[in-house]
C-alpha cells in the first residue's frame, strides 16, 4: 500500500510542479503542458508493445500461459495509452499547427502502432480456444516485431518523399529549462510505475479467470 501511495504522491507532485512552477517552452508556449501527458503516454504505448512482444516470444519458447496473460494484458493497456497519445497529439497539433492530422512522421508512427494493437486484439477476439489463441497471437506478435522497425522508422519518413509539400512542423531543438526536464522525467517514471501496476492487476485478473474456468 505504501508503494501505491507513493506513486500517487509522486505523480501528483510532478503534475503540480509541472503546471505551476515549470516555465513554458519557447516554441510551444501555452501548449507546453501537453508534453507532460502526451509524451509519457506515447512512451508507455511503446513500453507496453515491447513487453507484449517479449512475452509472446517467451510463450512460443516456453508454452507457459502466464506469458500469454502478460502479452494480452500489455496489448490492452498499450492500446489505451496509444489512443491517449494519438488523441492528445492530435489536439496538440491542432493548437500548434492548425490541423489535427498532418502525417508528420511521429504522428504516423504512433498511428501505425495503434493499427498493430487493434489488429492483434482483433485476432485474439476471433479465437476461443485458449492455447490456440495464445499461440496464434504470439506468432502474429513476432510478425509485427519484424514490421515495427519499418513502420516506425522507415515508412513515416517516406511521406515527405511521397508528398512534396512540406508543412513546417519540425519540433526544433530547444534548450529545455532544467525544471521542465525534471518534471518531464518524473512524469515518465510515474507513468511507467502506473503502467506496471495496471499490468500486474490485469495479469492477476486473467489468472483468476482461468482458475474460475478450470473449476
Amino acid at each position: 500500500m505504501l508503494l501505491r501511495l507513493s506513486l500517487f504522491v509522486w505523480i501528483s507532485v510532478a503534475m503540480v510542479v509541472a503546471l505551476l512552477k515549470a516555465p513554458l517552452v519557447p516554441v510551444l508556449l501555452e501548449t507546453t503542458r501537453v508534453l507532460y501527458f502526451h509524451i509519457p503516454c506515447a512512451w508507455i504505448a511503446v513500453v507496453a508493445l515491447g513487453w507484449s512482444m517479449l512475452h509472446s516470444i517467451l510463450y512460443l519458447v516456453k508454452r507457459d500461459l502466464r506469458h500469454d496473460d502478460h502479452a494480452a494484458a500489455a496489448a490492452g493497456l498499450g492500446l489505451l495509452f496509444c489512443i491517449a497519445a494519438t488523441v492528445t497529439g492530435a489536439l496538440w497539433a491542432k493548437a500548434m499547427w492548425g490541423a489535427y492530422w498532418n502525417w508528420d512522421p511521429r504522428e504516423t508512427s504512433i498511428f501505425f502502432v495503434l493499427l498493430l494493437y487493434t489488429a492483434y486484439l482483433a485476432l485474439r477476439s476471433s479465437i476461443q480456444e485458449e492455447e490456440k489463441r495464445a499461440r496464434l497471437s504470439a506468432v502474429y506478435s513476432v510478425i509485427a516485431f519484424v514490421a515495427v522497425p519499418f513502420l516506425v522508422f522507415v515508412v513515416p519518413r517516406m511521406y515527405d518523399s511521397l508528398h512534396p509539400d512540406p508543412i513546417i512542423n519540425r519540433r526544433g531543438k530547444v534548450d529545455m529549462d532544467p525544471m521542465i526536464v525534471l518534471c518531464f522525467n518524473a512524469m515518465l517514471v510515474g507513468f511507467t510505475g502506473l503502467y506496471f501496476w495496471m499490468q500486474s492487476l490485469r495479469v492477476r485478473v486473467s489468472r483468476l479467470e482461468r482458475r474460475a474456468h478450470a473449476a
Partner: protein
Amino acid sequence: MPASGSNSAVAVWTILRKECRSEWRTRYGLNAALLFALASLTAVSFAAGRLGDRSDVLAALLWIVLLFATLSSLSHAFVREVEGRTMLLLRLVASPTEIATGKLLFNVLFLAVVEVFAVPLFLVFTGAPPVRWGPFLAVLGLGTIALAASSTLIGAVIAQTRGRGALFAGVSLPVLLPVLAAAVSGTRQMWSAHPVAPSLRLLAAYAVALLAASLLLYDHLWED
C-alpha cells in the same frame, strides 16, 4: 520426415504443382481474382479519370488495386486446407515450412498472373505515361514477392481462426503497409526518372526479414 536438401526441394515442388493443379481444376479462385481486379481497377481508373500527368497519384492507385487483389485472393491459401481437412494429409508428406514455401511460390505465381492481366489494363485506362520497363518490372516483381510473403504468413494464422476476409484484411494491413509505401515510392521514382534502387532495397529487406521470420514461425503454426 528426413528433410535433406533435395528432399525439401522436391516436397516444395510437389506442393506447388498440387496447388496449381487444384486451382486449375476449378479456376474458381483465379476467375474471382481476375474479375475482382478488373472491377477495382475499373472503379479506380474511371473515378480518377485520365491522369496522364499525375504519375504520383497513378502509382498510388495502381498499388491500391494490387493491394485489393492481394487481400481478396490470398487469404484463401490455407483456408482450403483447413476446411477440406487436407492439412493433416499434407503434414504427413511435408514439413510446415515446405508446405508454406510451396504455397508462397503459388501465391507469387497467382499474383503474377493477376498482374499480367490487370497492370496493362490499368496503364491503358488511366492514360499512364510511358513506363521504364526494367525498373517497373523490378518494383512489380519485388513488390509482389513482398506482398505474397506477408499474405501467406498472415493467411496461415487467419486460417485457423473463425474470422476470414475482413479479419485477414485488418490483420494484414499493418504488415503490408511497408510494402505499399516502398512499392508506391518505387513506381513514382520509375515514372519521374529517378533511380528505383532505394525502394527496391527496402522491398528486398522487408521481404527477406519476413521470410526469415516465416522459417522460424511456421513450425509453431500447426501443432496437434
